[in-house]
């Protein structure tokens, strides 16, 4: 008899994201010499929480601790600075944009991405060091696995896969056109920061389109824009700018291809595995608020 297997229901995908990003940050600090200090991380954390609290109060919403924690981890993973205030400013812009820049009840920008892009565009006080993540395959694979779990939980596994697929096609296509050895695009794809970006930033269910086709368009367009920025204009931070631009366009995509809006706690579709002998199928509880 077949048994249907549904994974344990931790109601909110964000728990997985927090665990995954925290693990990646720990590895980065211990093994990849990430240059961010505990004080800087603490300052970002405090700022994120403070602005979140302020925003929740002003908008009469319940205070949520999970999203600002994720933003803290994202900023700590990707943004670097000599001092503390630039990171705090990035945190303020990140969380602030979530409350301030909304359309039809949905915030436009991925908070960490907004913070990063604002700092990159307007100051030199903070920067990204995506090259530092290196091209160690084990690290990229670890991030991909952690990220797959997270995005699958949030029913957004299609976004990173389509994004990476499109991006890979473009870099390999470029290498074939130029006659370059294929080790060159392979090296680019093994970069840990790219994989992190794909699975933990661009896949944010709150700032990606609701409809499946819309998401595919979103992911492919982001990959194409990132590719052009990086390889035609040689802008090293092209990934972040591409996402920024696409999230700006996202309301249009939603309007063209509407779908059901994602709420935290919605479990993904159950995985059906054929297993010998049976226990009754687990039932799916109603989505959390």
């Amino acid at each position, binding site marked *: 008899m077949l048994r249907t297997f549904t994974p344990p229901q931790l109601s909110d995908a964000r728990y997985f994201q927090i665990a995954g990003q925290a693990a990646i940050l720990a590895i980065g600090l211990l093994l990849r010499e990430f240059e961010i200090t505990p004080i800087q991380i603490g300052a970002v954390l405090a700022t994120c929480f403070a602005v979140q609290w302020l925003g929740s109060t002003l908008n009469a919403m319940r205070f949520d601790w999970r999203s600002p924690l994720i933003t803290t981890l994202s900023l700590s993973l990707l943004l670097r600075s000599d001092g503390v205030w630039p990171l705090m400013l990035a945190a303020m812009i990140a969380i602030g944009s979530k409350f301030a820049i909304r359309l039809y009840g949905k915030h436009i920008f991925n908070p960490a991405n907004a913070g990063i892009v604002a700092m990159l565009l307007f100051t030199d006080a*903070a920067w990204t060091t*995506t*090259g530092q993540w290196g*091209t160690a395959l084990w690290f990229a694979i670890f991030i991909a696995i952690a990220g797959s779990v997270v995005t699958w939980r949030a029913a957004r596994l299609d976004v990173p896969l389509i994004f990476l697929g499109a991006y890979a096609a473009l870099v390999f296509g470029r290498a074939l*056109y*130029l006659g370059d050895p294929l*080790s060159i695009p392979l*090296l680019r794809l093994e970069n840990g920061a790219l994989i992190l970006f794909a699975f933990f930033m661009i896949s944010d269910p709150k700032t990606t389109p609701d409809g499946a086709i819309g998401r595919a368009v979103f992911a492919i367009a982001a990959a194409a824009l990132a590719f052009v920025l990086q390889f035609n204009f*040689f802008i090293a931070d092209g990934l972040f700018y591409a996402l920024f631009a696409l999230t700006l366009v996202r309301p249009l995509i939603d309007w063209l291809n509407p779908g059901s809006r994602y709420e935290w706690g919605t479990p993904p579709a159950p995985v059906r595995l054929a297993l010998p002998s049976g226990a009754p199928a687990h039932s799916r509880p109603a989505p959390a608020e």
Partner: protein
Amino acid sequence: MNRKLRNALFAATAVVAATSVAGGAVAFCGFYVAKADTKLFNKASKVAIMRDGERTVITMANDYKGDLKEFAIVVPVPVVLEEGQIHVTDSAILDHLDAYTAPRLVEYFDEDPCRQYRYNEMAMAAPAAESITVTARKRGVDSLGVTIEAEYTVGEYDIQILSAKESGGLAEFLKQNGYKLPDGAEETLASYIRQNIKFFVAKVNLEEQAATGLKYLRPLQVAFEDKRFMLPIRLGTVNADGKQELFAFMLTRKGRVETVNYRTVKLPSDMDVPLYVKDNFGTFYKAMFERSVEREGERAVFLEYAWDMSWCDPCAADPLSDEELKELGVYWIGDTSQPGQRIAPGNPARDVFVTRLHVSYDAEHFPEDLMFKETGDRSNFQGRYVLRHPYKGDAQCDAADAYRASLPERYEGEAQTLARLTGWEIDKIRERMAKGGQSFETPKKDSWWKRLWGNDSKDG
């Protein structure tokens, strides 16, 4: 070095710079051990890159030692250069920059533990380069899809800027002109051609070279504007057997430079090492660097120095003068009208940040040209290794006993550090330390009453 001393050093340096031509290290802060052997690394090249926005000046050292008739280089450049964009400069400037940013050995002398410093420093310069050369003869006529965009004679070099439609034609053109292209270079050329990159080909004009009266070839410089911030290394790896070394000195306005497509890692630094390293600094550095390369899977670029050029501590060489920096492409030197000036000790108009990168590369681990990015990081970093000379006097007090008792442990720490950095056998290290006066034996403690009468020969 305290602030007063540092300021005094700069005052003195300014005087010297004003009254003498740049070049020639004069020591102020103690004395130098002679620079380590410059031939430490085989096949090493030195390149300085000034980058500000899209403005770029590249200075390439040229250490070709063979027959001048046979010398030629091929360098990919993004644009066709005008004559004014090409220049020949003095190799002393690159050597100076090299010495200024080199990993340094610093020695301290422990003070009398019963009472209460001296300070010496020495620096090891990066090794000299041996450029990758291609033999050349006379120029040919283009009919292979190769266009000679421009031809100049600058300094002792005859220069052509070539653009090509396809790599077969370019390879044929070069072969016809007596250039021996290594196998596999054609594919790399093809890649550059498709990216619309031109080729800067230079060989020696024997008359002009004789007129210089020099026995060596001087560095070539090119200035241009392009969105690419990169260093083409692929042509150099095509026929190389084994690894090559590259030292890149970046001069920027905002801050530290790092690679985008490879990992930039800081050299292990600020560590105490055994005293015998003083006479073996070159060997130590080479072993440590090789081990670091291995540890990073042979895929990393190493940061050896990142510092604001308006000060240094310790200074491994005199700071570069404004003229030298201008020569290297720092066009904003002395321009006091810039907004957002940084106030720093030393010359306030000097808003230059230098990054020294060292990479040991081959085609397998570094298939792509180095692509760089400038960050706003102005934090300081230098390769610095510390010798601590123990106090050897005859101090007699409890503190001195405690001090001597702590020495073997300290030596052990230094030995472990050295073993970890270089991979040398710890037993051999201990042996050499012992020979060098750093004994691991716990000293015998003198009984307290021996201190009362010392060597008094009068017996009671």
